[in-house]
């Protein structure tokens, strides 16, 4: 076909199928923000020790192995984890009847999981605000405001959210580097708590906590159709960044702060306790600004994920509203009753759900691609 004289294409031609998709690096920034939020809200009950640092490495290696099914699935199918369980391609739909019911049930499980994660984040954030900044606003106002902001951001879609996330990640990285650079504390190697049989419970406890915070796996399984390829880069970069960031943070806190982290509870806030410049006398306000922004971004990511998975259909404004309302209600009830989602039962439940939604279902989808039968899907 002849090309008109006034039309010229340089480099790669735009691919219409890539519109609305995000890059693997943008997904990485959203996943890392989600993990950072968990670290920000983590209440340290024990002093940081080498056992915890080893546990982080151990958990990261498990996560690396656990990410293989989702990454391999993204290479072989563009249908997303839910549809792949039943169909080979995204255009087809599961058969009516029992199969469709199963499809919707799997979607509902993802929906409930992300509502639970969103509610946990919301409740922990409200708790953090009440403990550290009690005069700022009552808990109910924090819950409602952040949920409303998160819901609005989720309406912007994954693309808009990932752009905001990239900017925010840069800001948080700058803040952490600045706080570490202007810290007036000095490293004391005698603060190192060595790995010993006495610190073994710390190892298992922290490994469980870290694995229970690895919901990047179900997020990846759910969002990979929206990524322009390179999911292995997302996974690798996420795991390397998480390991490097958290290990560095633990090392600094152990060497400089020692057991003081138990007083403030929040490790990142503790880092700010020793930081001061002539211009910034107190990092609390800046911390709060970034934490609030991160909470909104991360919350909208969970709302988006829940609505994407809800009952297996497309993500709609109504579903996003339902996810946000459900998260708010659950957060309010658990906050009122004083149920923390970092309780031992919560940790086991989250780990089990992550294993099912982030590892087992992608693995089943992968198996289904090779040995699946056509009777599960319309048009195959």
């Amino acid at each position: 076909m002849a090309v008109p004289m006034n039309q010229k294409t340089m480099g790669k031609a735009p691919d219409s199928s890539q519109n609305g998709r995000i890059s693997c690096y943008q997904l990485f920034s959203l996943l890392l923000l989600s993990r950072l939020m968990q670290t920000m809200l983590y209440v340290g009950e024990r002093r940081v020790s080498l056992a915890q640092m080893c546990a982080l490495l151990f958990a990261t290696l498990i996560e690396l192995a656990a990410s293989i099914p989702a990454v391999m699935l993204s290479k072989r199918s563009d249908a997303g984890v839910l549809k792949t369980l039943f169909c080979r391609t995204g255009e087809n739909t599961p058969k009516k009847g029992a199969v469709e019911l199963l499809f919707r049930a799997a979607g509902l499980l993802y929906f409930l999981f992300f509502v639970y994660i969103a509610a946990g984040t919301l409740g922990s954030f409200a708790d953090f605000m009440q403990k550290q900044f009690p005069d700022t606003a009552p808990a109910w106002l924090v819950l409602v405001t952040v949920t409303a902001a998160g819901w609005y951001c989720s309406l912007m879609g994954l693309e808009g959210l990932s752009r905001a996330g990239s900017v925010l990640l840069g800001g948080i990285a700058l803040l952490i580097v600045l706080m570490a650079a202007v810290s007036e504390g000095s490293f004391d190697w005698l603060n190192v708590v060595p790995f010993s049989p006495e610190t073994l419970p710390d190892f298992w406890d922290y490994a469980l906590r870290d694995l229970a915070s690895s919901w990047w796996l179900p997020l990846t399984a759910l969002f990979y159709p929206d990524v322009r390829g390179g999911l292995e880069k997302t996974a690798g970069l996420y795991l390397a960044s998480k390991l490097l960031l958290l290990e560095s943070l633990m090392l600094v806190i152990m060497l400089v702060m020692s057991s003081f982290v138990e007083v403030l509870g929040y490790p990142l806030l503790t880092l700010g306790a020793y930081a001061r410049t002539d211009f910034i006398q107190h990092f609390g306000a800046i911390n709060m600004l970034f934490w609030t922004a991160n909470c909104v971004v991360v919350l909208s990511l969970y709302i988006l994920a829940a609505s994407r998975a809800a009952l297996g259909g497309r993500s709609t404004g109504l579903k996003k509203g339902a996810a946000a309302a459900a998260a708010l209600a659950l957060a309010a009830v658990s906050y009122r009753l004083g149920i923390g989602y970092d309780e031992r039962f919560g940790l086991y439940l989250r780990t089990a759900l992550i294993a099912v939604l982030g590892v087992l279902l992608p693995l089943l989808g992968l198996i289904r691609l090779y040995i699946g039968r056509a009777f599960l899907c319309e048009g195959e």
Partner: protein
Amino acid sequence: MRRGIIALITAAAVLLSGCSEASDLRRRLVVHAIGIDYSEDGLYTVSWQVFNPQSVEDTAPIDASSGNVSTIVTKGETISEARTRLSLHTGKRVFTGNAELILLGGGIERLELSRVLNYFWDNNDIYMGINLAWTRGEAKSIVSASLEHGTAMAELLCEAIGSSYEAGSLTPLRLIEAYNRLEMGEGFLIPCLSLKTGDEEDSEPVSPETVTASECVLISEGRASGYVTAEEASGIALLKGGLSSKSMTIDLGGDRVSVIINFNGVKRSAVIEESGWPVVRLALNGRLSVTDNPGGRDSGEITEGVREELFRLAALGYDRTAGLDGCDALDIARLLRSCESGYYYENRDVLPAVAMNTAFEMTISLWDSSQGGK
């Protein structure tokens, strides 16, 4: 249009967040130093050194000679209550985020230190790296002392401690460090400030008052257990490997020689001897600079004299702490945890006995910078 409104709301949330509880500087009480005394009747007397902008022009900087630094004293059954009264007495909002120094004074020795400091650890306003110091006598008298250029400002008091540290006499203590030491059950030193007036017999006739940092208070088992001289404090810091420099004057057969030692390498390790008690091995490397040698003494002689003086100081430090009552102000427990963790966990219930029976082996290598030899 809708995006514009959203952008405006977002910008307002960030830019105007400080306006929700805005308070004019005149209505704020900016605290620089906090002095705490404890009376027999169980009341805290808290002296707040504050910046008072109303006494001078609005734009005047914080300047003691201008009279815009003053001290307000309040009482309370708790420190929190004393702070509330400060606000009630002055009608201003108290801001402690700028405070530089906490001074512990008369009567505090009767209390567990963690009970006094607990208020500050739980206070989000206070900077956790704030300096902590003890005072001989009442903290109130130091916070409100009148030096020749006005009130003894917190910055100047911190500077006095900093100068002592540079001379190798005292080591500053921060609020976080106090928590960590108390939590570990360790002993530690708090620099002590003393107020001297011009009419005292042993002081120079400085007008009208002067503040010095020349001794420390030893905290053992969570309470103040006595004063420690600057020499003993130097010895303790030496054994902990915490001295970065030390200036001293030694007597060599009647000739006085002044030197500065800059320590550039300290290695500490612990091993368990056959007797079942630990031995701490300490290797110090330092560069020696002779600052005054009127008798023209030989370099080797000076180095040997300095080494002996350092051994003497270390012995003083040991005798005042671990050797006296097993007070672990020498970081023995943490060193054992690091080097001999099995032994540490087995014996952590009897650490005072372990500290008392711990021996120190000290090696000092000095390099005379003027000679270039060891």
